[in-house]
């Protein structure tokens, strides 16, 4: 076996480098045809163009020819000589899809399309230069025998390189997200991306990722690709009676396993050759990563290696997300505790944050807001003045007081909370007409949650009173809100408060201190 053949064969079975594999193709072609130059093009992801991926030319040994490589060469004395150059890109056409002799900018070349075993074109090989009558019969026959293995090697190299690039892109994207907002990763998006990459990398037909959201509970399908319609709702993943027996894992995560038990359900769900991998971290089950290889599907060791790699990536992502969620919960608990401690310092502010949260939620509902907005209003209400912790008792306290909305927002803006929470905290002292603080925002420049929170706090504060002022009656509150409608407060939100008051549903009084 010649060196080039040995290299080509080795590149089939070893985890070769992309460039080495393409080199092996050009070397084997050169040996078979006896021609010195070769150019290998690969189809781009759109399938419409071919990009020059590798060259093998005499240029390296004989600089005077320079058929490939840089577009020009420096000559002695600094003069620049433009060498004929090989096109870096070819538009795919019927003419390129059959074996023929072609006149190219670097000479007359023999052109051979490279096909995958299923007949699809993966690339184009140009070898030469050849005479006007084309490649000799013997060389053509030898090249013909090589065409199928060359296509196979090129296809495999191309797919592996594509997966490598996609993984690199996914990693970069994940890293970007980690940095953004202090690691608030959009879990489903990235798990979905990994699942897609796993499908394209392994050739699996379909797959899903199920995640255990709370310890001891059944995993829930979070992402599915190409599974039958309704799969996520129909599949039962409960630990005892479900598709999989989870009990060995739940009993002993470190030594346990994931076992498919309900074969009838597997058939019903359209599974054919599933491989389901338990996702474990520090002995604790986090979920399932499953690929189905389809009716005619087969897989080999390298496919399973890839599957394992993707499962590890998903595990890492789930573990990071869980650690971050735990950290965020505890941190948010601390911030809420700080707000409660501030309220407890004076009798008139007792329960202030709780009451503002309740009034804000009531106003949001009156305005027809959804549950997500109500959650954001409640969370923002519970912590809206926490920035005062940086103001109270500080010299020059009035400046710090003006900044407390910004300070408060900065304490929570990196947490995986709806953005409306930090937005509301930051703007709850802005006025609708632009006369508020700290930024003097106008109208709808202020997020709706901020406009609602502003009125809620006003009602609670004035309805409570303090050491120097009696609490305002409901009538006084109604009169003042009506007067400040359109100036301090958004008219629509002021109207909602007036409707609540008219129905006797505006409860701003303290619960007792």
């Amino acid at each position: 076996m010649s060196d080039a053949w040995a290299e080509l064969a080795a590149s089939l079975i070893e985890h070769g480098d992309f460039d080495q594999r393409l080199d092996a193709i050009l070397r084997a072609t050169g040996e078979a045809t006896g021609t010195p130059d070769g150019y290998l093009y690969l189809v781009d992801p759109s399938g419409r163009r071919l990009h020059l991926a590798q060259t093998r030319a005499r240029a390296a040994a004989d600089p005077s020819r320079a058929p490939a490589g840089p577009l020009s060469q420096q000559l002695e004395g600094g003069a620049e000589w433009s060498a004929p150059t090989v096109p870096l890109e070819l538009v795919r056409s019927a003419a390129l899809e059959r074996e023929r002799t072609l006149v190219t900018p670097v000479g007359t070349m023999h052109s051979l399309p490279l096909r995958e075993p299923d007949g699809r074109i993966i690339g184009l090989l140009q070898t030469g230069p050849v005479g006007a009558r084309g490649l000799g019969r013997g060389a053509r026959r030898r090249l013909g025998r090589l065409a199928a293995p060359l296509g196979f090697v090129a296809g495999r190299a191309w797919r592996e390189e594509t997966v490598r690039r996609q993984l690199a892109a996914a990693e970069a994207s994940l890293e970007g997200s980690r940095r953004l907002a202090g690691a608030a990763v959009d879990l489903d998006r990235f798990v979905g991306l990994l699942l897609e990459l796993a499908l394209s990398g392994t050739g699996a037909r379909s797959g899903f990722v199920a995640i255990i959201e709370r310890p001891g509970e059944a995993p829930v399908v979070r992402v599915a690709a190409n599974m039958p319609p309704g799969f996520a709702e129909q599949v039962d993943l409960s630990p005892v009676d479900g598709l999989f027996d989870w009990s060995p894992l739940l009993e002993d995560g470190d030594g346990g396993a994931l076992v498919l038990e309900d074969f009838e359900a597997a058939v019903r769900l359209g599974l054919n050759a599933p491989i389901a991998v338990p996702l474990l971290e520090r002995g604790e089950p986090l979920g399932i990563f499953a690929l189905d290889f389809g009716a005619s599907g087969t897989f080999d060791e390298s496919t399973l290696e890839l599957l394992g790699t993707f499962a590890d990536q998903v595990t890492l992502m789930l573990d990071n997300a869980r650690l971050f969620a735990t950290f965020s919960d505890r941190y948010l608990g601390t911030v809420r505790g700080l707000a409660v401690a501030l309220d407890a310092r004076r009798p008139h502010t007792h329960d202030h944050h709780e009451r503002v949260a309740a009034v804000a939620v009531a106003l949001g509902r009156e305005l027809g807001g959804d549950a997500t907005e109500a959650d954001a209003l409640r969370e923002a209400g519970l912590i809206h003045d926490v920035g005062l912790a940086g103001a109270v008792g500080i010299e020059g306290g009035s400046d710090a007081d003006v900044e407390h909305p910004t300070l408060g927002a900065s304490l929570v803006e990196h947490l995986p909370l709806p953005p409306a929470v930090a937005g509301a905290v930051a703007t709850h002292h802005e006025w609708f007409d632009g006369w508020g603080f700290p930024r003097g925002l106008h109208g709808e420049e202020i997020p709706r949650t901020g406009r609602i929170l502003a009125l809620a706090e006003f009602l609670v504060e004035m309805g409570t009173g303090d050491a120097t002022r009696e609490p305002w009656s409901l009538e006084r509150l109604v009169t003042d809100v009506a007067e400040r409608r359109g100036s301090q407060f958004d008219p629509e939100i002021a109207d909602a408060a007036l409707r609540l008051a008219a129905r006797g549903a505006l409860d701003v009084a303290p619960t007792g201190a």
Partner: protein
Amino acid sequence: MDHEIETQDGIKIVHLSGPLDVSQALALRELLGAQIDGPGARVLIDLSGVPLIDSSGIGVMVSAHRRADGVGGGAAFALAGAGATVARVFALTRTDRLLRLYDSVPDGVEALRVAS
């Protein structure tokens, strides 16, 4: 999936051939269930003719293993001769920790004979 059964020193050796996937799972469960037919049954599965196994095939093997544990009387269930791809599926699903796996049929026969 095809199979052949031979008996060696009281150990039933089930030689399987062909892929073991969802379409074969029920037939495989019946086949293995019939071999673990009472206390003291010793069954060795020869996987050298199995090019691939999926989670359902693994599930049947684990069920058979548990069944052997359940019938008692020294009943035993083991597997031997898994190729690289099949062995990798056992590792990925972590069932290699639950099952008794031997490199070759003679190794498996020896282990089951000693255990009896």
